[in-house]
């Protein structure tokens, strides 16, 4: 049997293993489709630190030129920086050569539309149609444009953030900070950014070799090294970026991870204290967001998981802040995308205006406990099981925007079939760890029971 090569084509672009499924030919076809889709215009080309980035960038540049676009190569830059620059430079779009947190022998292409926004699903469809049909528009020689290279364009992004926060207030505190760039593109700009804010910084994992010292998910395991360094450096705060630098995790002055929702909670609270307005978060973000919004008397909208869903709703509701509980803060005053630099700026500003430590600041928020679990379930059964569960709870406060979320007083449970694996993810949040655990177990048992019944009735019908 022929081995199936790992190649994933999805709404966020294409990913594969370089030299196996991801070849220059494939990259050139995708970029030819994208150039055809955009029509002629300027297109930013960015990359992360992977060793195959240069090779793929050349293939992308070749195709963008051939379709009459003008590529602007901006080099290794964080994802939010490229999104910001796409709008700032009024480019037609951007191609980013990155595979986020995948191992270093992977790479991929992400496609960004006008205004520096991810393409909505309908537009992605159109672009993929062009790709699959292979009907590319190549221009004759006299209409080819020269490729441009821009160095240091990333500082425009930093300048924008710095113009939106009180730099002097932060500078006065001379924060000692440890920053973990996870060997991602964030390392290109975070040193300058924290320097501008007058911080004394120790950096770890800043080498851009394409090899990642640890995975960039902000699990306690991955934040251990940062915690040690924070204690050793006697820092006030530890900052951890993910590989694309769109998400930020925090470690307190004692080296303890602050939990996934801390970044968003601190940022939302701080933005609302400056300017009131709607907040948009996804279904899995903590209830503390409702508590914070309640304090300021502003509404909270919840959307499906996924950055583009949150962004879309934010634009619709003219939200002042939003994001995802996994450390992705979206502040439209800079750019409507998840941005670890914006998050770091907001949190440092908040801390600068607070007389205590970061852990004391966190104690001012209501404490919630979020637990996550998953179990195997074939995709076709998962849908039927969740439908059955929905029937049972339809008279209660539920949300079916993304899977099934059952909302209780100061607690919720969220069941969601994975898009990529045959599993169901279960999450529960409550004011105490015990309650969260109870909620999680109850619903896990209930859904398993439904699955048993379904598979038995399925067998009986044969």
């Amino acid at each position, binding site marked *: 049997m022929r081995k199936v090569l790992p190649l994933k084509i999805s709404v966020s672009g294409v990913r594969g293993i370089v030299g196996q499924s991801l070849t220059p030919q494939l990259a050139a*076809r995708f970029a030819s489709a994208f150039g055809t889709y955009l029509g002629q215009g300027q297109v930013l080309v960015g990359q992360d630190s992977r060793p195959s980035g240069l090779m793929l960038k050349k293939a992308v540049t070749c195709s963008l030129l051939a379709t009459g676009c003008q590529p602007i190569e901006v080099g290794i830059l964080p994802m939010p920086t490229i999104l910001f620059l796409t709008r700032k430079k009024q480019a037609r779009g951007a191609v980013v050569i990155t595979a986020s947190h995948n191992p270093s*022998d992977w790479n991929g292409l992400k496609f960004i539309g006008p205004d520096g926004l991810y393409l909505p699903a309908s537009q992605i469809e159109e672009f993929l149609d062009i790709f699959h049909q292979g009907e590319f528009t190549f221009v004759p020689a*006299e209409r*080819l444009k020269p490729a441009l290279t821009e160095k240091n364009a990333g500082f425009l992004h930093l300048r924008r953030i710095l113009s939106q926060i009180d730099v002097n207030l932060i500078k006065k505190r001379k924060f000692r900070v440890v920053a973990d760039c996870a060997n991602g593109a964030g390392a290109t700009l975070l040193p300058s950014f924290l320097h501008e804010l007058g911080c004394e910084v120790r950096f770890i994992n800043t080498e851009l070799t394409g090899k990642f010292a640890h995975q960039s998910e902000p699990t306690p395991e991955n934040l251990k090294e940062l915690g040690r360094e924070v204690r050793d450096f006697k820092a006030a705060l530890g900052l951890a970026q993910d590989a694309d630098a769109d998400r930020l995790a925090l470690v307190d002055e004692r080296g303890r991870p602050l939990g996934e929702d801390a970044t968003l909670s601190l940022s939302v609270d701080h933005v609302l204290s400056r300017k009131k307005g709607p907040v948009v978060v996804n279904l899995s973000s903590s209830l503390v967001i409702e508590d914070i919004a309640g304090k300021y008397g502003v509404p909270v909208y919840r959307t499906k998981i996924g950055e583009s869903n949150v962004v879309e709703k934010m634009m619709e509701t003219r939200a002042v802040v939003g994001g995802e509980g996994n450390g992705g803060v979206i502040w439209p005053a800079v750019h409507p995308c998840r941005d670890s630099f914006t998050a770091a700026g907001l949190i440092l500003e908040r801390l600068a205006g607070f007389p205590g430590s970061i852990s004391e600041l966190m104690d001012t928020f209501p404490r919630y406990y979020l637990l996550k679990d998953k179990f195997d379930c074939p995709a076709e059964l998962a849908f039927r099981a969740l439908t059955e569960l929905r029937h049972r709870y339809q008279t209660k406060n539920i949300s079916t925007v993304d899977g099934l979320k059952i909302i209780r007083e100061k607690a919720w449970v969220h069941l969601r079939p994975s898009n990529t694996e045959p599993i169901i993810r279960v999450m529960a949040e409550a004011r105490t760890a015990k309650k969260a655990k109870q909620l999680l177990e109850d619903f896990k048992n209930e859904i398993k029971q439904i699955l048993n019944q379904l598979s038995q009735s399925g067998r009986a019908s044969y």
Partner: protein
Amino acid sequence: MKPLKLSVSGVRGIIGQAITPELVIDFASAFGTMLAAGPIVVGRDSRNSSPMLAAGVVSALLATGHEVIDLGLCPTPVIEFQVKRQKAAGAVSITGGHNPASWNALNFINGQGTYLDEFQGQELLDLYHLNRFQPVLFKKAPGIIRELNPEEPYFDWLLSRLNLPAIKQAHFKVVADPVNGAGSKLVDKLFDLLGARLTAINNGANGYFPHDPEPRPRNAMEVSSLVKITGADIGFLLNSDASRLSLVSENGETLSEEYTLPLLASYYLKKHPGPVVTNLSTSMMIDEVAKEKKVSVIRTRVGQSAIIQAMLQEKAAVAGEGSGGLAFDYFQPAFDAFAAMALFLELLAVEGQKISSLVERLPRYHIVKDSLVCPAHRLHTLVAEVKKLYPGVEINQMDGLRIEKKDLWIHVRASATEPLIRIIAESSSPHRAQTEVDKIMSYLRRLTG
């Protein structure tokens, strides 16, 4: 039909039609797969499509595990020189040569710094058609080395092989038209080093071709007037990658590109005697020169690849084509217009003669060249049809049809670079050559309707 020309030495076509990113990447991947491990040199001419092709080529070479030595804008002879200097596995020269600006091509060069020979060329085509490339897994990524000023060691080498004191002492005045191609600006350096005063036009390396980048009299009007105005000793026209050369004499006469080879060979063979290699379409003038120097003439198929291959096999002293491409054994086995220009100045300095009087000494032949646009799929069958016009005559079919009569030869062949049938005839009688070409042209026109 999208004209695409695959030959042993490369692939050429019109940008946006036959030449697409995928074609470029596939060919360069085949080349990267074919070559042994080692860096590969990449250079390009000034066409505005060349950076697009270069990006695709570099991507494919990196993907097949080769480090790339990027020479940037660089004429083919300098690329060929750098292959040997860098001990590279090969090179890709991105240039449409003499083709119009809407065209471009990948020219593949082996580790010896010459165009691929027919076996290597066949292997490349096989790999391309099999579409089985060997991409490497990216554990350790090959990179790009940017070589700045690749012409400097080249000029050092070139000068070391010339009678420099004689050239410098003559203080020549020169006019050159590098047609805004890859030779632009470099002509300033070359003639400065040779102590000559240069007046150059179309010297911008911007890829805008004010005339077709083919060195020949109909493109030489500006050079001719400048030679007259400045009182220059000689005028030069280059193609877009400085591999071909035609001349304008000191009195402003625009010389056929056919003169380049015999004029220079008659000087060069005195110092470096040896066989001469040329193609079936090149003027009989070279036979006269060779007879005088008592060396043999070997005729090959048309194209740099065939000529250079024969040059190496036959240990020839000079190899060249009537289109103005020349290679010399004491220099490099590659068409090199810089070496040819420098040698022309050496010739003028050493012989103390004017170009016009050197031309006078050559036998006068009349060469008539014509071409017929023809659908690509009928090129070869139509060429074969011409045989019917010459029943009972012995025909050389090494490359199309070549018919020899007393004081006349005719060559009919399918162009390797464009969808054209080329008809060339030469005789000491202008009338005979023209009549022969007209006869074939009208016959072919009737067939193509």
